[in-house]
């Protein structure tokens, strides 16, 4: 499951990155900073990325998840700061949904 989530995150990051004007070639890595001082995305692109990932989780894995929830905003380190954090965050949420029987 985690590999599927990682694949969705990677594809989505690339898809949104490609829409940015004059963006230099991008090499994906787990610690790639998505949002923040060195982040590749501004806030608008980050919102688009979140929407893209939510849609892919729903269509490809039948996972219905709101990524920008209260938990995301209350965490000390933003789950949207790097690819690795985002994958871990989604995986943890999916796990929790399963445990709660949703």
């Amino acid at each position, binding site marked *: 499951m985690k590999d599927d989530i990682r694949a969705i995150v990677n594809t989505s990051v690339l898809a949104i990155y490609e829409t940015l004007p004059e963006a230099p070639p991008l090499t994906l890595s787990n610690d790639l900073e998505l949002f923040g001082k060195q982040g590749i995305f501004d806030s608008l692109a980050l919102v688009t990325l979140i929407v893209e990932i939510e*849609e892919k989780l*729903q*269509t490809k894995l039948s996972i219905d998840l709101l990524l920008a929830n209260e938990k995301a905003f209350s965490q000390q380190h933003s789950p949207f700061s790097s690819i690795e954090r985002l994958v871990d965050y989604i995986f943890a949420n999916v796990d929790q949904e399963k445990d709660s029987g949703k």
Partner: protein
Amino acid sequence: MENKSITLISGTRKGIGKALAQHYLKQGHRVIGCSRRAADWSHPNYCHYEGDIADESFVKTLLFELRKKHHRLDYLINNAGIASMNHCLLTPTRLVERMMQTNFLGTFLLCREAAKLMAKHQFGRIVNFTTVAVPLHLEGEAVYAATKAAVMSLSQVLAKELGGYGITVNAVGPTPVKTDLIRAVPEEKIDKLLNQQAIKRFGKLSDISNVIDFFLKKESAFITGQTIFLGGVV
């Protein structure tokens, strides 16, 4: 991809919502409607969903189905709403919650989920419903007017947040129209209200659809965050 415009309208079982659905069906749109109960009318290009727009899972499922079937959404008309006239001292909490849930939360949820789909195509038009009760500060409509003031404010902020995605968000504020919504309002109250309008008559469905047509036009891409009140109410 389908050539017809894809239009989602809430509250289409009866009244203004039903009339708007039929108006846009006549214009060749594919219309998706919803209401808490089943519709007693049908059309080959109309699809009805039964559910509560204040229920997040219903709204998410509705938009998921819409995306699966049509792959995009061009227009969202947030018509569904409930009204009740009560003196504030006689307003039950449950009624406040119900009005807030349907009028504000329902509108918000539909805007949020629709905008996700619209953003992908860098195009969308959202029209929300407010009311002349907001600028007229009508007695007996404290809660109804407050929920609709919230919708106005929501529309203005969403206009800014969604402008970058090619989505416009506007609101229309109708005067009383002869529908079930005002059935229980005493005649003298309605007359008093009509007298505060520059043009002192009931609104017609065509008055409302005319404003919405304007907001939906391709040429209205530079019009967002606006509220148009009917009847000359300012």
